[in-house]
Each structure stands twice: as structure tokens, then as C-alpha cells.
């Protein structure tokens, strides 16, 4: 029996039962301390990606109007849509009709990736040739928060650790002074809020840290204005003396040292974080590459640029939420605007990472929580040109570390359901972990009496996505 493996199991049991031991009390897993770091125990599979940037389009972008054109809908446009079988929810009732895409499509790059006309930057062959569009994913829920939870945590009811937490738990962070898992939201937090980047039952240090675009980048990172860093240091020094005293009184209390160490770590973070988030230091050509000079693209562009800086500094998992994709109506103008807001920044991110030699180490994932229907209903007495939620068909794309560019999977001729290379969300998760060198079946945490894993009950790799 391999003694290391035996230890691993004992170790995990111990972890589940007593948190707050020195090794886990840090915000960041210690890079040097590989044996006690959870991910340290993982043999790295032949992974390419060291970091992941997940671009989350909240609301459910329409596959039919982005990367999965359906010419058949041209003929059916506004014809009455009939659904077979019983109608289970309000979304399948009422007068329904087919809706064609208001957009033209073109094929880009050597893999002839289909893209709607408004992807003017992603369609640059240099970028398009990096993309792997996946059309086979299906989710369990047609409702926003449950689908969001499922896509982020594997559990549609929420409460479980997010994929970013699992990855950080598995791999640790490469930078002591930054959080391992960073989240940025556009204007508003998505439905379900922080449950989407929750650490669930994993130790609290694996929770996603919300990086704010205004004010303090991390909540309460700095003391009030009228308290200087020097003042803070003076306070910490006296606190340290008080706490040394209590260490003498309670020599058998294991948590004290770890807690004291946190104050020092916090102080270092106060110094390091502001530098990382300072976008203005970036050269002008980079700022304009990401579209910071344009009102339409500057918000998402800033976040993409920030993501690159964070990954460069050793942050493991960055998630950016872009809202407003829930186009039940007016899809032409709404999706057009949304696409334009992300197109240039994402293309810039891919180009920039590539130019820095980081693209091979970085996995980029673009997704929503579900796709949209080929049909719609009357809204407000009007022929609403938009689409409802569709959990049976959607698209996502991958780029960078370990990804094989191309198109994988297919939906039926009207885009109602995935029919080729069909996979549940857990398979996407298992594949993402694999691309980062983590094995879902081994990345477990003992909680509530069983070893839990991101996929809940295991999943299959989507081989076609993997280079």
C-alpha cells in the first residue's frame, strides 16, 4: 500500500472535521507547502492550462444568433409553432411562432467557425482559429438562477462550491498576496448573487473574491482615509503584542498562530492589490486593443484586461459576468449591443495572451447558463422578436490551454435541441478540470459523510474539445 495515498485519505478526513489548522487558514494555499496543499496531492495530468478565465454571459445568449446559424428558420419565420407533448410551464403556452435570426452569418478561419455578423473581431482568422465552439451542452433547468448555479457549481440548487473554488482548492494560487479566485460582475450581481462563486463546503479561503471596479477593489481592503498605512502598522504591532500574550496563556490552542499570521498577510495584500488593479499603467495601445477608448466596449474591456493582469500575477481562476443576454424580445438590438460590447475585448484578450506567450497556459471559456428557443410568444400583444430559455441547446466556446480548435457537436435544424456530441454540464466541468490538470474523480472533499466532487457523481471527458 502506497503510504502517501493512505495519508491522503486520512488527511482529508481530518480536514473535513477540523478546519482552521495552520495549513488551511490562509487566504491562499502556500505554494511551497505542496504536501499539505490539497492540490499538491494531485498528479498533474498532461495539463496545459495553469489558469482559467471564464466569461459568463448571464441571461442565456442565443446560440441561434451567435455561433449556430439555422437557415431553416428563414422559411419558418412567424409561422405558427406547435409543441408536441404536454406543456409544463408558462413558457410553453400561448401563441407561439418561429423566429429567424435577424443577423447574417459568416464563416471565419480555417475551421470555418460560423459567427454572426457583429462578431467583427472574433472573426479575425488569427482569433477564430483559436476557438473551439461546442454546441452539444444541455443543462437541467430552464430557470436563470438554477441554471446559473448548475453552470457555476454543478448543483442547480446552489450551496455547493463553484468551479473556481474547486480549481483553487486543487491547484492553490501562485501568488501569496492575491486571492486565488477572483470574480468581476458587470453592473449588477447575477441572479443568485454570491452563491455563484461560493466556496460551499470547501474552506472559506476558496470563495471567489469579488473585485470591484469602483471604490475599494476588495471590500474593506484599506482603512478609512484618515488612517494611514503607517497608522495601521502601528496598530498591528501593538495587536501582535497583545496576541503574543494570549499565546502564552493558551499554549495548546492551535488556531492562534494562524490567525495572527492572517494579519500580516492582510497587510501585504493591502500593498499588492492596488498595483494589480491599476489599469491606467497599461500602455495606450493595449488599452485601445481592449476597447477602453470606446464607450461600448470599455466596461467589459477593462475587466478582460484586468483578468489578463491577474492571471499574469498568478491568480488561478478569473470569472467575468456580463449581463443583459436574456432577450425574450427585441433580440436584434439587444443581442447586437451585447455582442458588440464583448467582441473586441475578448478578441483582444486572446491576442494579448498569445502575444505574451500565455495563451497556452490559460484556458478561456465563454458560456451562458443556457441557450434560447427557436420560437417565441406574443408579448404585450405584439409579435415579440426574441427567444425564450432553452436548456436543450446552447453554445459555448473554449480557447487556449489544451483546447483543440474547431466546432464540436451540433443541434437540430432549428436549434431546438442538441443532437450530436450531447453532454450534460458535468461533462463540461470534468473537461475544464482536465484541461487544468485536475481529475474530477480525485478532486474531492470529504463533507457530510461522503467524498464530494464538482461533477457530483462523476462525468465524462468531451474528448473532441481536448487537443
Amino acid at each position, binding site marked *: *500500500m*502506497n503510504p502517501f495515498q493512505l495519508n491522503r485519505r486520512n488527511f482529508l478526513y481530518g480536514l473535513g472535521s477540523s*478546519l*482552521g489548522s495552520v495549513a488551511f*487558514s490562509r487566504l491562499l494555499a502556500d505554494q511551497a507547502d505542496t504536501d499539505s496543499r490539497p492540490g499538491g496531492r494531485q498528479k498533474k495530468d498532461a495539463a496545459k492550462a495553469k489558469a482559467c478565465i471564464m466569461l459568463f454571459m448571464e441571461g442565456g445568449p442565443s446560440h441561434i444568433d451567435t455561433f449556430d446559424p439555422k437557415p431553416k428558420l428563414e422559411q419558418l419565420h412567424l409561422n405558427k409553432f406547435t409543441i408536441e407533448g404536454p406543456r*409544463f*410551464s*408558462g*413558457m410553453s403556452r400561448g401563441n407561439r411562432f418561429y423566429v429567424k435570426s435577424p443577423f447574417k452569418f459568416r464563416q471565419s478561419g480555417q475551421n470555418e467557425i460560423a459567427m454572426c455578423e457583429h462578431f467583427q473581431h472574433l472573426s479575425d482568422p488569427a482569433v477564430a482559429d483559436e476557438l473551439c465552439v461546442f454546441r452539444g451542452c444541455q443543462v437541467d433547468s*430552464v430557470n*436563470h*438562477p438554477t441554471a446559473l448555479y448548475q453552470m457555476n457549481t454543478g448543483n442547480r440548487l*446552489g*450551496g455547493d462550491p463553484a468551479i473556481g473554488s474547486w480549481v483553487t482548492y486543487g491547484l492553490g494560487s501562485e501568488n501569496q498576496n492575491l486571492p486565488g479566485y477572483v470574480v468581476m460582475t458587470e*453592473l*449588477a450581481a*447575477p*441572479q443568485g*448573487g*454570491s452563491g455563484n462563486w461560493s466556496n460551499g463546503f470547501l474552506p472559506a*479561503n476558496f470563495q471567489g473574491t469579488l473585485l470591484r471596479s469602483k471604490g475599494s477593489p476588495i*471590500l*474593506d*481592503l484599506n482603512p*478609512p*482615509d484618515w*488612517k*494611514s498605512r503607517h*497608522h495601521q502598522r502601528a496598530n498591528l504591532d501593538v*495587536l501582535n*503584542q*497583545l496576541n503574543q*500574550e*494570549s499565546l502564552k496563556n*493558551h*499554549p*495548546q*490552542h492551535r*488556531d492562534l498562530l*494562524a*490567525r495572527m499570521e*492572517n*494579519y500580516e*498577510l492582510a497587510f501585504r495584500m493591502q500593498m499588492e492589490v492596488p498595483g494589480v488593479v491599476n489599469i491606467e499603467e497599461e500602455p495606450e495601445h493595449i488599452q485601445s486593443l481592449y476597447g477602453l477608448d470606446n464607450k461600448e466596449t470599455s466596461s467589459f474591456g477593462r475587466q478582460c484586461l484586468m483578468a489578463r493582469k491577474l492571471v499574469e500575477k498568478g491568480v488561478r481562476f478569473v470569472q467575468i459576468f456580463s449581463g*443583459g443576454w436574456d*432577450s*425574450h*424580445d*427585441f433580440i436584434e438590438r*439587444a443581442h447586437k*449591443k451585447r455582442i458588440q*460590447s464583448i467582441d473586441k475585448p475578448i478578441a483582444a484578450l486572446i491576442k494579448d495572451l498569445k502575444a505574451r506567450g500565455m495563451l497556452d497556459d490559460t484556458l478561456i471559456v465563454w458560456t451562458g447558463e443556457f441557450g434560447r428557443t427557436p420560437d417565441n410568444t406574443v408579448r*404585450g*400583444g405584439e*409579435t415579440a422578436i426574441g427567444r425564450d430559455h432553452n436548456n436543450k441547446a446552447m453554445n459555448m466556446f473554449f480557447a487556449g490551454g489544451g483546447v483543440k480548435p474547431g466546432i464540436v457537436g451540433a443541434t437540430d435544424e432549428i436549434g431546438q435541441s442538441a443532437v450530436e456530441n450531447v453532454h450534460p454540464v458535468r461533462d463540461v466541468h470534468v473537461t475544464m478540470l482536465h484541461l487544468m490538470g485536475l481529475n474530477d474523480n480525485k478532486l*474531492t472533499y470529504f463533507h457530510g*459523510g*461522503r*467524498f464530494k*466532487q464538482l461533477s457530483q457523481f462523476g462525468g465524462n471527458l468531451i474528448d473532441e474539445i481536448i487537443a
Partner: protein
Amino acid sequence: MKSKVALITCLLILGASCAPSAGQNVSNEDAQAKLFTLQVLPLLKSKCFGCHGNDPDNLQGDYDLRTRQSALKGGESGSPAIVVGKPGASPLLEAIKWEGLEMPPKENDRLNEQQIEIIRQWIQSGAAWPSQEKQTEIKKQLWSSADPGKGMRLENSGGLSEEWTYRTYAPEDVWAFQPFEKPKVPATHKHPIDAFIEKELDKTNLEMAPQADAATLIRRATYDLTGLPPTPDEVTQFELASQQNHKKAWNDLITRLLARPQYGERWGQHWLDVVRYADTSGMSNDFERSNAWRYRDYVVRSFNQNKPYNHFVIEQLAADDLVREQEKSEDGKNANGYTIAPAEAQVATGFLRMGPWEHTAMSPERVSRQNYLDDMVNSIGQTFLSVPLRCCKCHDHKSDPIPTRDYYRFYAALATTQPAEMKAALLPGENQAAFSEERTHVEALLDYSTKEREKLYAKREVAARKWYEERGIADQYVPFNKRQILGRQKFFDENEAAKIPPRFIGLTSEEEGVLKVREGESRIWTRRLERFQPLAQSVYYGGDILVNSRMLRPPNPKNKKLMAKHKTMPTSHIYEGGSVEAMGQQVTPGVLSALQVSTYHGDQEDPYSLPKVTDRRRIALARWITKKDNPLTKRSIVNRIWNYHFGKGLAGNPNNFGATGKKPTHPDLLNWLAEDFVDHGWRIKRLHRLIMTSAAYQASTTHPDKKQLDAADPNHDLLTVFQPRRLSAEEIRDSLLAASGELNPSVGGLPARPEINLEVALAPRMVQFSLAPAYQPNRTPEMRNRRSIYAYRICGLADPMMEVFNRPKPDESCEVRDTASVSPQVFTLMNSDSITKRSIAMASRLEKEAESIEDQIRLGFALLGLNQPGEGTVELLVEHFEKMSRYHAENPPQPGDYPVELARSVVEEFTGETCHYVERLDIYENYVPDLHPADVKPGTRALADICLLLFNSNEFIYVY
């Protein structure tokens, strides 16, 4: 289907050809056949067939375990997987030991050493693979015999397969499901709890740590029972009394603490953690549960009244049935022999409304209904029986004796229960102090959003009229609602459709977005008015009607369509694989069969059945749960109480007594406590006293012989020392308010809204169709600075200070709080606005109550319930104070400023563009702020720095 038939034939042929090897005697052959049939094959099926058998077209690694031949032959590597008689040379054994290959690959499925030994023996003894007939014969023989062989069998209502039904369990894995006798207290002169603990200690040469000192003990007990620090006077008096007669002083202290209203607040919070209390319903809309606070107060009240736990259980599950019993009985009493006020009863069943749930047009109805019932089944199992039941939604339980049938019988017990807001008159004791002020606030915002909405409506209608006029059909103008209906009717008629103006006529695309926001706001504030109505988040009995949870009420008797649904009694089925689409066998209401505890309703044929009528299902379930001979309930609650006193349950997973939960460290003690608890009327306060008067509870956190302790009891299972614990989020905040003198100790009432981090409070948050309104605190400090249990719990918005100190999210039941130290706690406790304000308020109090800086510092320690500092520490702090005074004189803060309006922007889904609007923050128009740093002198700010250090000190954060 074809392949299945082929598979069976193939098995038969191979099985028949599997003759016993020469040289083995018959009994040995028989033993081998049994070994394979009863132990090896079930293991292979549950652990391996998933990838190596169930799907013959997709065998992982080309390895097929369905036949002896293919099992021996191995997979794609080409070499044999099993070398008969030589386990050491068999790669299969290596793989299941996780040496080389790691199989099964999932940590959860990994074989334990016993299971590996079974496979090893099997290979060693010749890898027998008897025929199908022989296997059937062996199984039939075993199942019909009273002796199950290895392990124990638990009778049950029947699993999906006979293998499951007749399977056996290791007795230690099903400890919780078995009946037990009250153990005898080991004969010593000691406290019964200590007697049981000493019995375990006798097996080692460890001794219990000595009693902690009086100051430590009063702080420990006061936090434990009230969640607040003792006052300086209380500490001094207790120290004196303890010197004279510790036993009496300790007893008196417990009596005093249990009598305080803060006791119910502290222990009510524990209960709310388990049941997942929140003031909103989570999911897309995070709808307000406007009257949930009444359930919260009911819980607090129940603890303070020392309500027998069995009544507490019954009321939360079925108080409505109790009332119906009372109405029918002559003496006005229910079958439990007491009377509960109808309104109180309606409030009590709020338990059945906890947990995130909603139904909207976006959700499939049957799935919504399943989500609700599944959540309730699981929650009832977990809360009252310490057996989570969700595992059995899709299959028979993998490790516990619960067939999926029992899950669906339990489910059926709730199938006629419908969530709704029910009428419930306000009770005399309910705190309505905040009603009028809160109503003003809600009405102000409703008025604002309605006016803004109406402005846009008016603009739209002007344009619509003009549209009709321009077409010369002014006479055909109809208002917006009518136009919508017309549009729907005439939808497929282009000519007619052209006679209706566009939906958002007259509005810019920005205004379209704003209109949606204003409509959303109006709905939210209209709903919020429910707060002031005599309603309770509750349930009623009836058929499924599933209305949008924007407004949940029992059906109006005039609504024939709804009433027809209401009167349709749902039938219950097993959903195969947990899918509502796969309706299997019908089931009737019932309870968990493997406990062998019959229901009061049960008969000989079905001792575990519950009533099949629409009502009375829940009361029958509740009475079964609280039956004295139900082995789970009584141990569940005493273990929970123990868990909160010691930071760890006697059984380490208070929510899971199943095979996968931690086993009890002191089973006899747990059983004795459970029986003793029932014998004395299920009284929780009595149990507190029993536990707290033990030497184990009063032990020091430091052991005199650390080496011995580490060697004999590294995990602190033997209860030789008391484990220090970190204060909970609520205790931290409440203690600071108490020490600063700002705490308003009033009990109960509408959710209080403390100040939370302003950025978080004002950050936009999506709810369906719109943005949630900004979080505004209460207007006055008295309303804000209430105990944390009364703080407004919004599923989608956590107070970051509470969250960072591990207050659980209300979507999952929390059996024990996490206490990991992480850096963001430092940011909160050093830098946040709240902590700064508490430090300023406390400093200003110290200045008022003590003269010299030395005395002020000493009082600071005392107010936080800390031991008095040594002279060296006082000197250190005085010196720091002087240094900080100089700093603050030169660095004055800016005065506080609160926004009365908020410029909002949101990406509107109809336009894909950002739209802008103004949200009114009415509270700040007339705000009474807490004491602000700019309001005080530099010296006060320097003293506040000292307070801040105390807030951050280990001595404050931990209870010893």
C-alpha cells in the same frame, strides 16, 4: 433490450460451464459459490459494472466484468486481469488497492480494506463463478433464513431489487436506526455525564483537565447561553460566589442565564441555522417572505418557554392539525393534551416554508412542486431525524436502510401540503413597535415608484392616442391592457395586428428599460405591505394548484377552476430515477420502515402507514417522529444540544446519523442522555443544566499533560479538555454593540436593518425582470442596533461582515458553523465602517464612565468580558494611546455623508443597452446616524484605536 437478453443467455452458458476445480470438496465449493454470490458479485455490480458491464457497447478499457472468462481475460492491455489462485499477481487486485491503476476512480466508490479482502479471498480460492441458478438458489436460501450470515439485516418496505431489500449492514453503520435500552450510569459518585466519560478515559491513562477558573467559566457560560459577554459586575460577583461555594454559584448562574430572553435568541439562532431561516425565498426573484419574522420569533419564544421538544416538533410540522383537533374536542385540547392558539399554530408551520423555493411562469409546474416536496422531505429528515433523505429521491439508499419507496411514502405524507400566506391574527406578545415607521418607509417608496411609473404610462398613452389619430381611427383607441389582449387575439391576422400601436410607443429605448424597473419596484413595494397584515408564511391542505409565488394564497372559493384543482387529491408515485416524467409504482403515505417503529395509524398489514385523507397526514407523521420509541428523534436533539455546548456532537454530524456520518464517540452517553431527556418531559433547559454541571463542561482548555493528551486523544474525542471556540458572527457583532452601549435589547419584531457595508448595500443586484431595491438601514440607531438574529436575512444579499465570519447561507442546513480564519476577516475587523463606528462609540462610553486613561482601558477589557490586563499591558496601551492621540490630532476625518438618491444603471435585456434611472433612498432623508469619528475629539479616536485592538484580539475572538 436485445442486448439484455443476449447478456443473460451468455451469463447462463458461461455460468453452467463454470465447473468447480478438481480437488475442492463440496462444502468448500459451496462456500466459494456463496462468497461469490453474496459478496463478490454485489461488490462488482455496485463498484465496477458502471463502466465494465452495464453498457456492453461502451466498456471502459475494453474490460468486461460480466463473465468469469472476460473478467479473467482483462482489457485492452492484453494481459490477464486475474490470475486464479494468485491475488498478488492479479492486476485487478492492484487496481482496487489503488496501487498502479486506481479503480474505481471515484474517491467515494473506493473499496475499503474489508472489501478488498473479499476480492482477494475470492481470487485466492479460485475465482469461483457459479451458475445463475446456483446464485438464485443461494440467495433464496439466505433471504428465507432467519440468520443473514455476516452483518445484520433490517426489515424494510422493500427496495427496487431483492438484493437491496435483503442486504445486510455492519451493526455500527446502522447504530442510529436500532432500538436501544437506557444504559446504566457507570457506578461512581460522579455526575452521570462524567461517569460515562471517565469510563472511556479509563481505557487510556489520561485524566480530565482541571476545572477552568471562575472568570473563564462565567464568560464561557454566558456566551454559550446568551451569545453575549458577561457584564463586569456579573464577573466580580460570580468570582466571589464561586470562591464560597462553586457548585451553588454555578447552578445559580445557569438559572439566571436560562431565564434571560437572550437565551432564546441564542438557541433560537442555532435552530434557525438548521432550518435555514431567511426573510426571502431566494431563486430568481428572491421574493419577500414578509411575515417569516413571526416564525423566527416563535422559535425564540419556544426556547424561552422551555417548550417540550416533542411539542416543538409537532407544532412546526402540523400545528394546523392540532387546532382542528382542539376544535373537535370538548375540552378544547388537542390529542397531546394542551391548547395552542390558532394564530400561533399558523405561524409555527413556517418551518414548512423555509429553504429557497419559488414557482414562476418560467418553471415547469411539476418540477416546481417536486422541488418543494423534495426539499421538505429532506429537511424534515435532516432536521428532526438527523437522516437526510434526498439520496433516496433517485434510488434506494446506498448505505442506509432507506428504500426509495420510503422516501416516496414520506413524500406522499406531504403531497397534500400547499405553501401559502395564511391569515393569522397578531398575537399579544408579538413586537409591533416598528410597524408604523416601517409602513411609512414602504409607502414612501411605493408612492415614488408608482408615480415614476405613471409618468411613463401617461407619456405612452399620449403617443398611442396620437398614433390612432394619425391613422384616422381615433375612435378605436383602447387603453394599454385592452390593446395587449387584442394583440394576443389578433396575433395571426396581420391586418388586424396593424391596427394596434407598438407596445412601447412614445418611449425611448432608455424609457422602456426604466418602465420595467419602475413596474418591478411597484410590485416589490406592494408586496412588502404584506408585512403589516395579519398573515403568516404557512401551509394548508389541498390539491396542487401551483400559482406564481408572487402571491401565494389558498384558492378563492369563487374560483371554480382553482377549486376543482384544490379538491383533487394528488396520487403519489415513485419517480424512477427521481424524474417527474418517470412515474412508477403508486405509493401511500408512510414513514421509514427500517426503524420498525409503527405509526399510531398503522395496522397489521401496514404498520408504517399514515392517513390517506387530505388532512391529518402531517400530524400523524409528527407523532411518529416524536414517538418515545423512535430511536432517531431523541438522539438527534440531545446530540444537537451537546454539539452547541462543546463545539462537536457526540455523533460528529448532527445532520447525518447514517452510515456515512461520524459515529458516536460515547454511544452509551448519547443513549442515556436521550432516554433521560424523554423521561423528564423533553425539556431542553433541563438538558442544558445537566450538561453544564458536568466536570467535562467546566474543564480547562489547557491540559496539564499535553504530550499524553496528543498521544492518547489527538482529535479531542475523549472530552478531556474543553475546546476553545471562535465567537460566531452574531456574537461578535452583538458583543461589540453591548460593549459600546449601543445595543437595543428588545425582543422580536420586523426584521431590523443594521448598517452594512455601504458599497454592498447599494450595489445593484439582479432579480427577475429588474433590479432589487437598494438595501437601506433603519432610520434610527435604536432600530438598527438590534441583536443580529433580528437582522433582515436576504438570500441574495449577505451582510459581508456576517458572511466573512461564517454565518451560513440560508440555502443549506448548517449543523455546525465553520470557523476557519481567513484574511478578509482582518479587513472587516480592522477597516470596516461598522467596526470603526463601534470603536468610536465604545471609546466615547469609556470616557464617560471612567476618568483616567488607565481606568478607561481597564473598563474596556471588562466590558468585553475579558480578563483584566496586567500592568505591562496597560502601560503598552497607554503609550499607544498617546502616540495615536498625536496622530489623530493631525489627521482629522471627513464628516459622514449619506446619499438620498442613487443613480442606477442597468443593462436592459430588451435593448442590450445601459439604461439609467434614479432610485430614491428615503431613509437617508431623515437619518439619525451613529456617532461618527468626525464628531469626536482626537483623543476619543485614539481611545477608539485601543478598542479596535481589543475587538481584534485573540482573547476577545475566542471563548475559552
